[in-house]
């Protein structure tokens, strides 16, 4: 079962397509992950990045390509992406914990410091995390960017807050 059948992307898919940041880069500090794997006509990721770290090019259906050296992990692109497909991961904190930042467009009542259940790309609860940061600026235009601190082994997996069903 692949992305086209399930809608669920895996880290393996991204690694295979050479679209996942290197371990080395993640250890150095925050870096973006472009989880956008189809040629769709769209380029706000490119135009929003203050460091020109994402390239789409003249043909807006090209896949966005991240230059992990230029990327500072500033998180600007997360709220700009129309497909909510950009994340920022960081494995530089310690050997135990790391962070993941993701877009969140639902009503919420959590606050910084709260413990929440974290969900993977399939919506399954995989671990607990602590809310580190909540950003909702005028520029992010009603897309909240949440940063969650989680055990380091789940940094490549966690992409949202678990939704009770």
């Amino acid at each position: 079962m692949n992305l086209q059948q399930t809608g669920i992307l895996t880290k393996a898919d991204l690694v295979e397509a050479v679209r996942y940041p290197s371990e080395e880069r993640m250890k150095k500090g925050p870096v973006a992950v472009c989880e956008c794997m189809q040629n769709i006509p769209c380029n706000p990721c490119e135009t929003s990045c203050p460091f020109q770290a994402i390239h789409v090019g003249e043909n807006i259906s090209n896949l966005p390509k991240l230059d992990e050296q230029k990327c500072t992990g500033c998180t600007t692109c997360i709220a700009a992406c129309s497909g909510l497909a950009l994340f920022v991961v960081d494995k530089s904190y310690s050997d135990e914990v790391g962070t993941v930042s993701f877009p969140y467009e639902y009503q919420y009542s959590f606050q910084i410091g709260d413990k929440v259940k974290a969900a993977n790309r399939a919506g399954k609860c995989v671990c607990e995390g602590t809310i580190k940061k909540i950003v909702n600026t005028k520029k992010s235009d009603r897309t909240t960017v949440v940063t969650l601190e989680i055990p380091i082994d789940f940094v490549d997996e966690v992409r949202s807050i678990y939704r009770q069903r």
Partner: protein
Amino acid sequence: MKQCEMLVIGGGPAGLSAAIEAAEAGVQVVIIDANEKAGGQLFKQIHKFFGSSMHRAGTRGIDIGEELLQKCKDLNVEIWLNSLVIGVYDNNVVAVDVKKSLTEHELVKVQTKKIVIATGASENAVKFPGWTLPGVMGAGAAQTMANFHRVLPGKKVLMIGSGNVGLIVSYQLMQAGAEIVGIVEAQPNINGYAVHASKLTREGIPIYTGYTIIEAKGKERVNQAVIGKVNPDWSIVEGSEITLDVDTITIGAGLKPLIGMAYMGGCKLINDRFLGGWAPCHNYNMETTTKNIYVAGDASGVEEANTAIEEGKLCGVSIAESLGYLDSTKAEELKKAIWNRLAGLREGAHGTERTGAKQKQLEEYTKAMEG
């Protein structure tokens, strides 16, 4: 009889853009829209749009709508609301049913020089046992309820269809507080963009590819949906049925151009799957085979807001030129730039097929005018 130079049927992105472009050149324009607010689909599109940043990608549809309405206001474009165009007659006379109150209507005739048909599209239905039960509705209808009227259509929703409309509306219903029980897609693959699907799957929503709806159950209202796996011959795989508790079933099975007015105007139509069905043929100026009747947006083939805006602009420029408000060199320059932008926008998903269908539409116009 009321007179105007240009009458636009439908105030969505296509109609508003046509009006703005023409009014900027000096044309006197009236827009007629059936709704209580102009803007068409835009005021339901609370998500950030795809496209090029040059075309306001990353901007939410509602904000694009506000911008267009403001421009119309600045240019003194007259907009009639709660007014349904019910007929297009000889000599460019249009009949409008103006709603005065819940029970009172007035029939008004307008004589114009140019007509733009920008009526948009209507939703396709899917028929299955129980499809007439309350709670079974179009995805667009659910979106209008939730985002425009701010009424949640239901709490436990099953979506039929995984095109972008099905995926986006599911996401928006979830934002509004509904639980999406699942998304059913008869094809083996998800139809819309994977990024839209992934937004849903990471919230735990199952997407049943290769499944179809078999039946909606319930007495007063739907309370269960039965889905099942499809064989290549469209029969149901025995024993694959799943019964889901729902209170709403929404159907996102595509859109077709609203062509009633074009048909009445005698415009020659063409049928193509990639236009969404029947649509009027038109030329490089967006003029149909009936002189002085133009078409733009989803009414000329279902596409998207960006393309609707560009096609609307084409109508506006062509009409301003034809009425003598723009010289032909300037008009040609503007039209060329718009066609170039349209070509760029039609490079995306199903780009080749869409471009091909639009090409055929132009060719059919030429054939009809020669024949």
